[in-house]
């Protein structure tokens, strides 16, 4: 079913919209979950929560032309929450690997104190990513937005793993410089 039609079902408070969304995007949402959470029950719980959150936010939102990113964002949020709440060995190892990489991008010397305005940071990230060429941008988003393992990214784009790692490293350096320029320092 077309995304527009699915969103219309949500807007009409028709629960069939959830079923259609699950039918069309459930697999991809679960795949995102499985990158950080190994057990099926929790991933399904996140998926269900994501649909519920979508139900609660359409309306006012009407993501007719960005339904998948919209659902994936809700899913990603739930997955990160679950992952942090659960604190089990494997999940934490996967999350820690991601945050450790992103520490490269932190401009200031003291990473503990400063309160960060999420929206402002989001705007700075958007500006940075939009200015990037498509390939490094996609690689960066596959890694830190979809939590793909490096090996998967390499296969997806037909690159070697070291090429992916180098691209990610350069993008992180670039992001750090950009954030510093934007005043995100301690």
């Amino acid at each position, binding site marked *: 079913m077309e995304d527009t039609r699915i969103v219309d079902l949500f807007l009409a408070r028709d629960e069939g919209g959830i079923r259609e969304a699950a039918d069309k995007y459930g697999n991809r949402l679960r795949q995102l979950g499985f990158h950080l959470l190994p057990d099926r029950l929790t991933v399904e719980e996140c998926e269900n929560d994501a649909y519920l959150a979508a139900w609660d936010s359409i309306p006012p939102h009407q993501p007719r032309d960005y339904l998948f*990113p919209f659902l994936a964002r809700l899913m990603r949020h739930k997955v990160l929450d679950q992952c942090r709440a659960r604190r089990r060995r494997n999940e934490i190892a996967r999350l820690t690997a991601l945050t450790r990489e992103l520490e490269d991008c932190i401009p200031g010397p003291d990473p503990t104190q400063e309160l*960060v305005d999420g929206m402002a940071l*989001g705007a700075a990230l958007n500006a940075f990513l939009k200015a990037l060429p498509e390939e490094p941008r*996609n690689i960066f988003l596959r890694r830190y937005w*979809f939590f793909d393992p490096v090996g998967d990214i390499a296969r*997806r784009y037909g690159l070697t793993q070291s090429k992916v790692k180098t691209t990610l490293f350069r993008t992180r350096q670039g992001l750090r410089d950009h954030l510093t320029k934007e005043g995100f320092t301690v």
Partner: protein
Amino acid sequence: MKADDLLNSLEHVDPELVAQAAKPPKKTPSRRPLWVGLTAVAAAASILVGIALWPGGSPAVTQAFAVAAAEYPEMAPYPSEADYLKANGDLDMDAWRACYDAWWADRKAQLDQPEGYDSGLEGYYAASLVQFLGGGGTENRVYSPLNLYFALGMLAELTDGDSRQQILDLLGQDSIETLRTQARALWNANYCDDGAVTSVLASSLWLNQDVPFVQSTLDTLADTYYASSYQGEMGSAEFNQALQTWLNDQTGGLLKESADQIKLDPETVLALATTVYYRGRWAQEFNPDNTAPDLFHTPEGDVTCDFMRQSSNSAYYWGERFSAVGKTVESSGTLWLILPDEGVSVDQLLADPEAQDFLLSNGDWDNQKHLTVNLSMPKFDVSGQMDLIEGLQAMGITDVFDPAVSDFTPMTTEVDEIYVSQATHAARVMVDEEGLTAAAFTVLAAAGGAMPPEDEVDFTLDRPFLFVLTGAAGQPLFAGVVNQPG
């Protein structure tokens, strides 16, 4: 600012950029899996019999009676979507969700155990896999690591001194207290009886009516191991019948042939029985229309058997000498299917440290790739009965088998020279199509669009292979070697 802030703020990235990154880089035709019913059933039982060099037995009472009964946790049933359909055929989401939430709360309570509760067991799992699955020749082998763990744990409670220490050493525990904590957590994490999945570890003690037992030990066993105790006349037909009935009840009759052979001698002081019964539905089921006969290459020549077939987008795992896939059981664990590479035998694979690691990894494995897996596997029904004594002795448990050194004082101080004279383990794992009638609710729960596959692989289990069935909490409930699928 923390790296976590960055990770969070990435959610504000423009959806258009996310959509671009989500686009598959190359297009290949998508396949939709078909969903029909199928069930996996498995059961195992361990019987450890302790006898004494003592002429016991009196023909007084012949009725077995329970002296302590274990109480299992109550669980809300899993709500079948089929029961929540409105007149127009739509799902009544609110009503279903209310029941689902109650089910999930109970399920979560069972699964939420203290962090690291299952640590220390890796050595035991690895040693017992090699010990009890290796060297089987051309026969099927199957056993339950978790079931044997509970039998050994209870034996540790009944013993002291070196007899107990040898068991604690094998199970990787410092003390009987840490073992108790772990056993209780393991039992609960693996308990499920919600109508959709049945996974029950049951234990019982069969006590000689002429022997006074230490009540506090029996209480500990009831509390920690959920073990019921029965007392009666050893060697009597009634007491044997009661034990056999208990075993059949706990294992859904799957082990009837083995259970009916269990008989206790009059000099038996105590028999310890542990069982595990597991029944679940595939999350993504096979379509029986795709099942067709084909050749399976057993070590003794080719046989024809029914192969179930399915293509799905799932993880494919590999090592130096094997490849593997996992089939998820709805709302529960996974059946891991491990195929040795051509020219590598099952025994060679069992001796390979990398393969051992995989068997116990529950899918936490670096060498994996999501792709279209064309799975072709024989329907199988494997069962095996084995004498555990030699294997346990090889793993360092010796004193309990020797009346000269065994120490059973926590159990009774009235009888000397008790030893374990019999240790039997029977297990059976069946993968069949009996769950067909229950297919309706799984169909709705499991439906989902397949992502366009980027790659494809055929995974054909047409020669001897290994399997491990993990429960929802990730521990190995069953492990086996399939040499003859029939």
